[in-house]
């Protein structure tokens, strides 16, 4: 029988055990990151850019100025929500590729409710919670369509969620240009500004949605690791047949999971609308032309199993995105180079992890 050495020795100190457990993981990231950056260095050299300059800009743009750090955090927050929207259903081996659509739909409904209630002049203490709940319910309900289609008609959620993305993007387009909503001065498909009492505001340049994101990290970690629902989600992911034989309600768990995932994406969308743009506009769930749903999938692949690692992975992804933006503006390096880097990092992490775990 293959026993891992670290599991057997309870005599060693906690520190040593933690380190030896974390070591294989660190090795994965070490190998993948150095390989990826190596390739980027080679490509930039071939394209005629200064390699140290490219790498420095890419990695340190977020940390050189407070503005850099702020924009990194600003990107991380919506990304965190779409990442969890994928991460949670992925725990039960169902893949929600519709975090983007759920975020768009959640954001759209938030804006619609805020604009419809604009004349009531509700105070912030009433309006903001109301909009947050709207965003949560809208995103959750939108994802629930896919959950229902799987539970009752056995339609693969990968397909249904991707298709629903197109529905959501049309919804956003519709509401942005709907009569009474459209901002005629914008010259861009976007709504009028929301009432100012709907704005969440900033503290020291950091959006208040940061607090909700932090709370989300806590809630999801507790949900996955500590609650009965989390256990049932994991159990179905480990083996759906056994889970059902021993009394786990597949349909109920599936629906709850999709609702929960979609609710987080919807919340992320609502917060973007309320806190960053103060209006609904086409493309609010994209960063540098990349949709946040897909980035969330990448961020999940990077962390693997641990929900607490999601914020780290989202932050590092955002560091690269900010660096990419800066590269393009200061050195005219095509931004695609960084997308290549991101894709490579994810692929290499997944491959190295598989290789290392196969060896054990």
């Amino acid at each position, binding site marked *: *029988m*293959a*026993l891992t*050495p670290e*599991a*057997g020795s*309870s005599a060693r100190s906690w520190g040593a055990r933690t380190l030896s457990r974390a070591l294989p993981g660190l090795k994965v990231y070490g190998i993948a990151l150095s390989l990826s950056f190596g390739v980027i260095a080679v490509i930039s050299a071939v394209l005629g850019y200064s390699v140290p300059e490219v790498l420095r800009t890419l990695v340190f743009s977020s940390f050189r100025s407070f503005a850099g750090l702020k924009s990194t955090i600003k990107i991380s927050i919506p990304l965190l929500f779409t990442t969890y929207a994928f991460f949670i259903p992925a725990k039960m081996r169902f893949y929600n590729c519709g975090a983007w659509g759920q975020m768009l739909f959640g954001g759209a409904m938030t804006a619609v409710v805020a604009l419809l209630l604009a004349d009531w002049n509700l105070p912030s203490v009433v309006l903001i919670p109301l909009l947050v709940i709207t965003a949560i319910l809208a995103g959750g309900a939108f994802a629930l369509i896919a959950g229902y289609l799987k539970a009752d008609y056995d339609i693969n959620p990968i397909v249904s969620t991707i298709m629903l993305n197109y529905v959501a993007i049309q919804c956003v387009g519709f509401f942005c240009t709907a009569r009474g909503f459209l901002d005629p001065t914008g010259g861009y498909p976007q709504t009028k500004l929301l009432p100012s009492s709907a704005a969440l505001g900033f503290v020291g340049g950091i959006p208040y949605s940061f607090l909700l994101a932090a709370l989300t990290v806590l809630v999801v970690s*507790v949900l996955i690791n*500590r*609650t*009965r629902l*989390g*256990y*049932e989600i*994991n*159990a179905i*992911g*480990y*083996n759906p*047949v*056994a*889970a059902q*034989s*021993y*009394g*786990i*309600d597949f349909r109920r768990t599936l629906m709850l999971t999709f609702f929960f995932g979609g609710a987080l994406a919807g919340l992320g969308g609502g917060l973007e609308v309320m806190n960053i743009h103060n209006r609904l506009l086409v493309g609010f769930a994209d960063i540098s032309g990349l949709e946040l749903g897909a980035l969330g999938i990448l961020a999940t692949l990077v962390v693997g199993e641990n929900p607490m690692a999601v914020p780290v992975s989202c932050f590092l992804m955002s560091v690269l995105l900010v660096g990419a933006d800066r590269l393009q503006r200061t050195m005219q390096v095509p931004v695609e180079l960084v997308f290549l880097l991101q894709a490579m990092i994810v692929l290499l992490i997944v491959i190295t992890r598989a290789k290392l775990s196969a060896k*054990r």
Partner: protein
Amino acid sequence: MLVEMKSIRKVFGEVVALNDVDFSIEKGGMHGLLGENGAGKTTLMNILYGYYQMDRGEIKFEGRPVKVLSPQDAIRLGIGMVHQLSTLVPEFTAVENIILGTEGRRLSFSIGGERAGILKLCEEIGLSFPLQVKARELPAGIKQKIEIIRALYRGAKLIILDEPTTFLVESEFDQLLKSVKRLIDQGITVIFITHKIREVLKACDTVTVLRKGKVEGKIDRPEMDRERLVKMMFIEKDIKITESALPRVQLPDCPRSESPVLSVQNLSVEAGEKGVGVNNVSFDLYGGEILGVASVSGNGVKELVGALIHPSRVKEGDIRVKGESIRGLSTLEVFARGVFFTPEERVQEGILIEGTIKENILLGHHGEKRFLRHNLFINWEEAGKAARKTIDEYGVHTPGEDFLIKRLSGGNIQKVIIGRAFVGQICLLVTHNPTVGLDVSSVEFIFRKLVEIRSHGDAVLWVNEDLDELMMLSDRIAVIHRGELKGIFQRDQFDKYQIGLAMIGA
């Protein structure tokens, strides 16, 4: 010598699977490879078939040294292997499965022509099976025959059968033996991997016994006897073995409860994906009793067990536990009434494969108050305690309760599955083929456990395909054929032949 393997060594991680193993067989005949689970039988044959590479040693085939780097190499040499689990493509017919991989670089070929060839081959060997039915619809015994023909179709001179009887009923095993004898008459050599001594005694011309990655010896047919093989297989273990090479466990006298623990009345259940449903079955099961259920796979027993655990599947009739109907209850509500079960497929249905032992022990108990806080949170301390208790009491060989269950051996996994049933109070254990594929010491453990439940005054519904096992430990045996109860035999009426006839509906 047809095969000579010399000083074969194979190490997995820190485990020495094979330690300088010498194995050789003559051309022709049936050669047994006997040993407990984990003795290295399958590893040795996987090396011969090119699945694994040995760390050290040499292989000679037909007197020439050979390098077998992949199964393709093995096939080219004329070695075929039939694995324990079917490797057929479920959506392909027998013909398609047999020719799969032989089409080479041709762009087109006629299936009709191939079929004629396959039919001729089947006739020569005396095997027959439906050629046009998809593999997923065929029973295990037929699939094995297809795999044998597939190996022969690729020109195999040597066929390795890896524990071929695991999923076969006695009569299917006899049929398989008959076909194998025909093969041997045609000059084919067969290696037969097994952990069952009685099968070796019944079928093999020579036997090589492996123990803990080492060869204990090779014996020819005239010198084979049970005592000797038992000694070679388990030197340090003190296990008594019956005529049919089962561990000997006594069934003590035990009073039967006044009223039935389980009462099944005119039960009908719809058929599942394959096989038949349950049709108007009634029986009572009392406390202090083991009721064996004998049935050929695919005759509705799986559906019967399913209805006990998922009463929503009941179409007609009633199931009562201690007098109260469980119709319409959820699985967890059934468990809460003291019923628990262990499923037929140990890994596919029984465990959370990617989960830890702790998570697996909790399964089915995750709705119980003592494992929950405020009905919402799992009380992992309690779950850990329960898991540690099971590990200690059942002697599960593991470093701890947070160890991944998939790294345990089959016997240890089964201990976790059985142990899980005793985390709560039970009055009825429904268990389906609990001993399949386990070595003698694990089987003995499970037998003792079943008797323990019975001595405690509780009931066991024991669905089992091995009739010898059932006859040793059941108070009564119910026979089910095509979803109908064909009769219940009392212990003093047990007769293998009569029960066997009832099982096939005669």
